[in-house]
């Protein structure tokens, strides 16, 4: 598993020794760290004593809480410190969910171990999933050279290599038999601050020039019109939380979707390369600008 952000994951169980639920919570956390060595175990008793190492660690970590019962001691420990847990689990809820009723034995028996296993598996699956989401959000992009132009106070860029464009101001960046899709700097400037994105459905088949999602600013709703055809194999979920990536970094962090290419050679016939698109975009911007000047001089007369 690849970790892209330096973010520690901590697990904080209840460890209540006087109830079987506490013993199960403790067992869950031990199973998680056994399978995921980079997860840090936090002892609730030591944390309660104000251990300095823990205090620093939890400030920046993702915290998973396992509560044995409704007293929710570990949750309270975290809330006292004005922190927010990444995930909270209640053993009784889990027992209902998995229809495994824990016995009251304080020494772990088969039934209780089974419940602990199920819960631990769920946590591990969740952690792997959120790591994948991160993979999707922060793709590695190589250093990129741009053509750029400033018109009035607006600044427009177009990547020099590696991207292809349609006249609908959307880009495609092929990498082998897959490609990323997104909107150009011109389009994000036209939309202004993007507040919502609607991403395409995973697995859907798209034709060249189909719309593969839309984005909404306070000014307008615009569509991403695909420069290529193929099957959607990934979408940039992080845009739902951070639609501003489309404005800040439209060619990289603001990518919309990834497709498995069907016939890029054919798609390419109706696309432009970086330089061609840059010229096209410049002409479009200047035309809009001159058009406004023209209205102005008509009014002057």
């Amino acid at each position, binding site marked *: 598993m690849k970790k892209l952000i330096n973010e520690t994951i901590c697990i904080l169980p209840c460890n209540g020794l006087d109830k079987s639920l506490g013993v199960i919570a403790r067992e869950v956390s031990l199973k998680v760290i056994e399978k995921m060595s980079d997860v840090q175990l936090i002892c609730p008793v030591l944390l309660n004593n104000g251990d300095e190492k823990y205090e620093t660690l939890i400030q920046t970590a993702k915290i998973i809480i396992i509560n044995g019962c409704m007293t929710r001691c570990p949750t309270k420990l975290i809330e006292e410190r004005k922190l927010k847990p990444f995930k909270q689990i209640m053993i009784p809820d889990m027992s209902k969910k998995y229809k495994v009723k824990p016995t009251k034995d304080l020494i772990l028996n088969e039934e209780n171990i089974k419940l602990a296993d199920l819960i631990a598996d769920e946590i591990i699956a969740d952690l792997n999933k959120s790591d994948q989401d991160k993979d999707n959000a922060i793709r590695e992009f190589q250093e990129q050279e741009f053509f750029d132009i*400033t018109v*009035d*106070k*607006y*600044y427009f860029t177009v990547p020099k290599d590696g991207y292809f464009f349609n006249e609908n101001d959307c880009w495609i960046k092929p990498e082998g038999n897959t490609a990323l899709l997104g909107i150009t700097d011109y389009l994000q400037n036209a939309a202004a601050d993007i507040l919502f994105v609607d991403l395409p459905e995973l697995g859907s088949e798209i034709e060249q020039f189909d719309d593969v999602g839309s984005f909404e600013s306070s000014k307008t709703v615009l569509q991403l019109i695909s420069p290529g055809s193929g099957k959607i194999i990934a979408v940039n979920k992080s845009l739902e939380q951070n639609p501003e990536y489309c404005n*800040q*970094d439209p060619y990289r962090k603001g990518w919309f979707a990834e497709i498995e290419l069907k016939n890029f050679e054919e798609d390419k016939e109706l696309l432009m390369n970086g330089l061609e698109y840059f010229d096209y975009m410049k002409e479009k911007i200047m035309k809009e600008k001159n058009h*406004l*000047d023209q209205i*102005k001089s008509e009014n002057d007369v």
Partner: protein
Amino acid sequence: MRKKVGIIACSGEELLGGTLSRAAARIVVEKLRPQETIILCEPLFAAGGLERHGGQEERNFAKEHPTITIEGCEEECAKIAVDKYSGPPTATFNITEFIHAHPELKSMSREDLGEDGMKLAEIIAEEIAKKVDELFIRK
């Protein structure tokens, strides 16, 4: 090609003059001279917009275009910011002078200018628009 004129209001939150400067600036760029002007954000000149191009866009624009600042009080925050990052502004308007010149127009509050306040803002905006014409037509 004629160059657009940058309009920078102090927009100060704490005082009536700030709200008047803001209203006057909006009237100029929206109603009176939408094609000839561009509004610029005052705080963006300084530390704003560290990601991507950010404040650089405002600074570069003001370096290469005529600019008009509108000041809500004698602190002249907008003028000083523009001067620091892009060179001296082409013209500066002081709201307090207009308030003194029009004692009959009593703005309601910094939160809500009221009818009189909006009238005053229109008067200020008309003056700014005249200046815009002067600067815009000059090649």
